[in-house]
Every structure is written in structure tokens, then in C-alpha cells.
């Protein structure tokens, strides 16, 4: 049975094709303004990689911010359930999943069967979301993908404390004005974001293994800082791009129904 998962987020669109408990193809693109267009483009990309046609797919589950707009989805599932499913499939020892998304961040607690036991999402403004990094990348004029590596080379420990993304941006600008090094500022930003998200996990009471999923997991600065903020080592998915985890979970759910 071939199934697919399609995750239309506010920043990126992801798709995974899944057959016999294996990922056979996956794709990620920046989201387009029209979610229908995003979903059609992304599924075609994943299909052509696997050399398949849309009608070869038996079941498609849609998820993400724009899930309502996916024209070909047979079923919709919340990102929370999809991320839980994907991470648990990849790593059955997972008990807690942290997903930093574009509009919100979530901490999810699951049981040994991958079922969601509790979850929480970020509560205050957006300083704990992927948007935060994007706005900051803009302000610092660095590429989003490079932030992690650059931040690793920091020398001075700076602090960003504001609760509001926009005002945090002001803090960043003022650090630039003070001729602070970009790496030092990035390091502070990563810690600031990670600490906001860490509080989500802490409020559910920590349970290992903790897996970080979503695009931001690729940022090693945030990833490392998260372990510190939680006070417990965070793991990454085994051999899978963390960004496709939601779509993967969706594809797995499709195969189960």
C-alpha cells in the first residue's frame, strides 16, 4: 500500500510518499501564498521522485496550517498527532517531541504506543517560533540555513531578553550598533529561542527520550541550546530530515487507516 503525507505549513510545504513502512520519497519547498498551489507543487515533486502518479497513492493525509486547502487529501490530521507519529515511528523510545514551527511551537508528550498524552503550545507572542529566527536572519542579513553554524563560533556570551519578537529585534539591532559580533548575537538568539521552547517542555514535566523535529531542528545552535534549557539531552531523528517529520507522520497515519 502506497500512502502520502502532505504538510502545508506557513513557511514551507512538505510531502512524503510511504510504502511498506518505508519512506520512498520526500520533498520540501518554501510555501507559496496560495496553499492549493503549494500542495499541488509539493505532491508532484514527491511523486515524480518516486516515479509515481497521484492515482497510485491509495491514501493521503494532510496536515499543517493550510491543511484545509489541500485538494487531494482524504483525511486531515493535526500537526501534533503527525509529529508524534513520525517521531515515534523513527524512534520508538521517544516520549517527548518538541516541534518549533513557523507560527507556533509545541511540546508533545506521547506514550509507548505513540499516542499523544498531553501537549502544549507557545503562549506568548512569537518569540518562541520559527518566525523569530526568520525575522532575525533578516535583521542580521544572514541566511537562515547558516545561522546555526555561524552561532557556534561565538566568543562572547550576550543576552536577548525581550518577550516580544519585534522588540527582541530592536535588541538585536542595538547589539549590532554596539559592534557585537554576529556569531555572538546569533548564539544569544538561539539560547533565547531555545529557552522559551524549553519552558514548554518543562511545563509538561520532562520525560526522555526527547526528540526535536521541524526545520529549526537543523539549526545546531538552537538544538544544542535546547538541551541546556531543558536540562536534559535532546535527540534528533535517526537518518531523517527533521523538517519532513510532520508529513511523514501524516503518511504513516494514512497507511494505518
Amino acid at each position, binding site marked *: 500500500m502506497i500512502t502520502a503525507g502532505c504538510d502545508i505549513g*506557513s513557511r514551507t510545504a512538505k510531502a512524503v510518499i510511504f510504502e511498506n513502512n518505508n519512506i520512498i520519497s520526500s520533498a520540501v519547498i518554501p510555501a507559496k*501564498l496560495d*496553499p492549493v498551489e503549494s500542495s499541488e507543487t509539493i505532491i508532484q515533486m514527491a511523486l515524480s521522485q518516486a516515479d509515481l502518479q497521484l492515482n497510485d497513492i491509495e491514501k493521503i493525509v494532510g496536515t499543517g*496550517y*493550510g491543511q*484545509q*486547502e489541500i485538494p487531494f487529501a482524504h483525511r486531515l490530521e493535526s500537526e501534533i498527532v503527525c509529529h508524534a507519529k513520525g517521531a515515534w515511528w523513527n524512534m520508538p523510545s521517544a516520549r517527548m517531541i518538541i516541534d518549533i514551527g513557523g*507560527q*507556533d511551537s509545541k511540546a508533545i508528550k506521547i506514550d509507548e504506543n505513540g499516542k499523544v498524552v498531553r501537549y502544549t503550545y507557545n503562549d506568548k*507572542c*512569537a518569540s518562541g*517560533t520559527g*518566525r523569530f529566527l526568520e*525575522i532575525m536572519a533578516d*535583521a*542580521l*542579513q544572514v541566511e537562515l540555513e547558516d545561522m546555526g553554524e555561524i552561532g557556534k563560533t561565538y566568543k562572547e556570551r550576550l543576552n536577548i531578553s525581550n518577550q*516580544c*519578537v*519585534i*522588540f527582541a*529585534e*530592536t535588541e538585536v*539591532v542595538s547589539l*549590532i*550598533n554596539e559592534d557585537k559580533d554576529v556569531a555572538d548575537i546569533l548564539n544569544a538568539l538561539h539560547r533565547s529561542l531555545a529557552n522559551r521552547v524549553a519552558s514548554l517542555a518543562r511545563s509538561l514535566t520532562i520525560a526522555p527520550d526527547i526528540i526535536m523535529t521541524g526545520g529549526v531542528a537543523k539549526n545546531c545552535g538552537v538544538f544544542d541550546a535546547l538541551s541546556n534549557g531543558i536540562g536534559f539531552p535532546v535527540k534528533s531523528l535517526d537518518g531523517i530530515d527533521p523538517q519532513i517529520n510532520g508529513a511523514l507522520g501524516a503518511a504513516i497515519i494514512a497507511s494505518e487507516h
Partner: protein
Amino acid sequence: MSIVAGFDVGSLSTKAVIIKNNKLIGTAIIKSSPKPIVSANMVMKKLLDDTGIAQSDIKMATGTGYGREKIDFIDNAISEISCHSKGARWFVPSARTIIDIGGQDCKVIKLDKDGNIKKFITNDKCASGTGRFLDVMAKVMNIDVSELGTISQKSTKPIAFASICTVWAQADVIKHINSRRPVEDICAGINVAMANRVSMLTNAIKVENDICMTGGVAKNKGVVKALSSLLGERIKKLKKADPQLTGAIGAALFAQEKL
């Protein structure tokens, strides 16, 4: 013959003007670079190139704006509040209430009849009443921030947003885009949300006529219209120059006084 200059280094844009005998003879607006000193040098170069004036001809220069203290070629630095008041009076000599929506904050200033600051108030709360709010929203909509006003004019039914936080409002905007609500209604909703925040601040200071709006947002007809109707008062148009230059003009006028 006295040539003076005013520089307004803001978080989103950097503005500069040259004034000669009380007359505006050169203006420049550029997008700010993260480093104010870089912005200041760039705007200075543009100004000199455009007007053909040599830097040495500028007898006095005053700086204002977020990065004012970092500019090395100015003679003194004065806060935006004072500069916007001064500049607004140059546009509208009868101005008593000045509303300036900047990139980082929003200020409402009350002046006495001679143009002295009687009281001012700024929003400290959240970025939802600042220029950055419109900026972020325009970006989500994939339009230029300058288009927000014109597009919104076609709207008959502005959409209500969660207006307490910029980023929460942004989530709302994305939701409405996804569900294909008319772009003009979304834009109008954004402008109204902005006007709501600003009117609250303005009312807190008890407006006195005439009211002026300075800064880039003054060019957004949607916000100005919504704000006028909320306040129940007309907002005077700044006609002599681009309202975005008000701070820089005020700075230049301070420089002129120092001569």
C-alpha cells in the same frame, strides 16, 4: 547663506534633509542598514550627490532617530520627540497634536501654542502599534507596505484581527489569506487594527487641534482615514514635503537655530 542638515536614522529607514535659509533644498530617504553609522554615511552621500553640495558647506548638522548618537558627522543629537514636533510645525504651524508612527514605537506629542512640548506618550507595550506591524503584515501579504493604504480603500468589510500581538495577528492574516478572503478586506483590517492602537494612545493625551501625522505611515491613507474616524477629528495633511522627512526636517531646524 547658511546651509544646515538634519539626519533621522530610524530602524526601518534613514532620512536626511538639507535646509538653506529655511527652505528645503535636498532630501534623501534610504532603507536602514543594521548599522546606523553605515546608514548615515550612505544617506549623506546620496544627499550630497543629489544636491551637489559639498559636506564642508554644511555649517551645522543635527541627528535624531534610533541611531542618533552613533553618527560621527553631526554636531548634536536631539530626540525624535523634539524633532518631530519641530518638523511638524514647519509643515503645519498650527499643529498642537503630533502622531508619529515609527518603526519601533508610536509617539503622540502635545504641544502648546508656541510649539513647546507639553506632554508626550509612547507605546511601550508591544509592537502592535508600530510601523513594524504594518511591515510584517505587508510581507505576509506579499505586497509592498506602501500599497496597504491604496488596496484597503476598496474594502467594504474590514476583517477584525487579534490586535493585541503582531505575531498573533499575523497568524490570523495567514488564516484569512488561506481561506481566500478579499485582499482589500484583509488590508483594511490591518489598517483598522493599527488605527485602533494609535487612537487609544492619542486619546490618552487628550487631543487638541490641529492634529498632524508624521512619519512614513502618514502616507497610508487607510490608517489615516480609520484614525480620523476613530478620533472624530480631521488629521491635517502634510503637503510641503514627504511626511516621512518630518524628523529630519525638525533636526535641520534645530541645527539652524544653533547657528
